[in-house]
């Protein structure tokens, strides 16, 4: 009976002379280590609005809202901490690697849901024929940059390339809408579905 008591006593005495183990937390800040998975945050410079993060999120914590008003079409990505499990998948799968990153913020508590939701807005480009979504403007430009010289083969990009090269538009891009899809529609910005229809329609005329 005596032996274990002495051993435990030694541990007790050692604790008595060492400094308190308890943190002084809320009075003192806690330093989280490098690589801590906190609340994700969108970054304006990096995000191109491709919605890859929303697609890979296992708990669907990123909401995509699209406003198809032709005057000002926008796409809004909203991160909802109430659903977020801080798994870092959004950061890993971000196509630019800079668009969404996990911060070190560990305390995300809130009283009503809207106060912590964090969103980013992007301009989107609509198909000139059917009004469907082609993609976010920044995303299309990013793809164009990645494609390099290959992007000349895509009519969608021609206008932008001309602009970036500071040359006046050689091919005037039409924005009028036809009843039926026609050959000259390829020079307009069209969604993949309409583009395909243009080519098939075109072939039908000739053969």
């Amino acid at each position, binding site marked *: 009976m005596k032996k274990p008591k002495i051993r435990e006593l030694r541990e007790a005495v050692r604790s008595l002379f060492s400094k308190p183990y*308890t943190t002084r937390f*809320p009075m003192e800040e806690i330093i989280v280590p490098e690589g801590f998975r906190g609340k994700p945050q969108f970054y304006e410079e990096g995000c191109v609005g491709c919605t890859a993060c929303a697609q890979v999120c*296992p708990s669907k914590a990123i909401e995509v809202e699209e406003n198809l008003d032709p005057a000002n079409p926008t796409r809004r990505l909203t991160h909802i901490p*109430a659903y*977020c499990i801080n798994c870092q998948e959004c950061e890993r799968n971000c196509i630019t690697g800079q668009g969404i990153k996990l911060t070190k913020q*560990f305390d*995300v*508590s*809130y009283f009503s849901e809207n106060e912590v939701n964090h969103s980013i807005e992007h301009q989107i480009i609509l198909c000139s024929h059917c009004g469907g979504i082609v993609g976010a403007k920044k995303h299309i430009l990013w793809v164009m940059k990645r494609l390099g010289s290959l992007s000349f083969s895509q009519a969608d990009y021609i206008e932008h390339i001309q602009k970036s090269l500071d040359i006046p538009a050689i091919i005037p891009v039409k924005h009028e809408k036809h009843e039926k899809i026609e050959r000259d529609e390829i020079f307009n910005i069209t969604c993949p579905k309409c583009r395909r229809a243009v080519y098939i329609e075109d072939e039908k005329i000739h053969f």
Partner: protein
Amino acid sequence: MNIKTRALKKSLWVYHLSTGSCNNCDIEILDCLSPRFDIERFGMVLVGSPKHADVLLITGIVTKKNLERVKEVYHETPKPCFVVAVGTCACSGNMFRSGYNMAGPLKNVIPVDVFIPGCPPGPAAIISAVVKLLNKLK
């Protein structure tokens, strides 16, 4: 702030209820009591019955079998009391919200005062949320 709430916030007694969680949030709540974070220094104690509690810490999605029990526990707690939803499951249902056995989330069942998302929220996050709640009442 009325006199009841003023008296309430002096030393909070906490009751912890799991309504279908993965146990992580529960362990982190228990971790608040361990020597590292030791919430007893604020006068907080974990009690064994909702009848003694001022704060309900609720974790987990509310499963169908648990639905009645959550209501019962809330009913038994003396008012005014605070309800704290700990963890993403309690806040919204997490990945299980499409499941067939979910009756929640918690905010649809009982009124919730403060939400602590995180999977799981660490003891530090839980403590700072409670501090936030107390500051708001001032």
